């Protein structure tokens, strides 16, 4: 979806403070807006998740953290290489869940995702090259 594409909210109405309301929602009723009529924030393409969805993501994050800690205690029982892979996979899943759901990258304009991904990929690439150059993977 391009940055200039119109939002699903259709013809949004601009109210003081920069909020956009879907058609039919009254600015005066901001304190009592039904979930489907929560004002869109600037840069928001689709509505943010509901509080219930936020809680569900929180539960998944807690379960993943518990799994991570459990896997870390398996040192000696399963190969260290497998432990590292499992830990890194769970770390990436947690990272993506927070970025996508809590930081709203899945519902906001793609320009934010592009900047964030650019920084993350650039940093990982740069430091992988640096660490490889310094032979970190072969040990001290």
């Amino acid at each position: 979806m391009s940055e200039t594409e119109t939002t699903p909210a259709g013809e949004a109405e601009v109210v003081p403070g920069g909020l956009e309301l879907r058609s039919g929602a009254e600015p005066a009723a901001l304190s009592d807006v039904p979930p489907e009529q929560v004002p869109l924030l600037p840069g928001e393409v689709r509505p943010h998740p509901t509080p219930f969805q936020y809680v569900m993501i929180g539960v998944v994050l807690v379960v993943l953290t518990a799994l991570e800690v459990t896997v870390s205690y398996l040192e000696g029982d399963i190969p260290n290489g497998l432990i590292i892979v499992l830990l890194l996979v769970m770390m990436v899943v947690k990272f993506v869940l927070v970025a996508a759901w809590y930081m709203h990258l899945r519902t906001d304009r793609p320009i934010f995702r592009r900047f964030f991904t650019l920084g993350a990929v650039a940093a990982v690439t740069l430091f992988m090259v640096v660490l490889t150059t310094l032979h970190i993977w072969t040990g001290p």
Partner: protein
Amino acid sequence: MEQTALAPAHDAYDSHGTATGVTNAKLGMWIFLSSEFLLFGSFISAYLLYKGRSHTGPKPAQVYDIPFTSTTSFILLMSSLTMVLSLAAIQRGDHRRFRIWILATALFGLTFIGGQVYEFTNFFREQHLSLSTNLFGSTFFVLTGLHGAHVTAGIIWLLSLFGLSTQGRLAAGDSEKVEIAGLYWHFVDVIWIVIFTVIYLVPK
């Protein structure tokens, strides 16, 4: 003539008056967070580079208290949840819930920092590990200390929002201010997700 030529470009601007179609404040925060990857990446890399190269102890396996750090990590994760709940509340104009959730987020953050202070103190007094003891001490304290400084800045920011709200100076129309503070807070959380796994949990 020039004005006629510029007109279509102005039409492309949206209600925020920016060429990108998003507010400068929010875009600026995302660009700042993007650059923070490089900052934290350099300190994580330094830790990994010097890992196992200390000639003297103590070593990571001797000092880490995984159950304790897991608990503080859990607390920081929960602070991200309360942060988004505070945003959801102010978007709905529910200022009472907003104040509850934003204060809970700040308190979770304070608890995390308290845990970090306890951990640092324990390492220094019981394990005799300081910034200058060995390479592990230097890289560990600088990395986690840098993260702690970010959390502390976030707590001050959250408490400022709480103060504004109690004074009635934070309306539902100011939700973007809360969202931008939330972006910073969640970033601090995702960085800790990486630090917790790479520094504490990966086999020594």
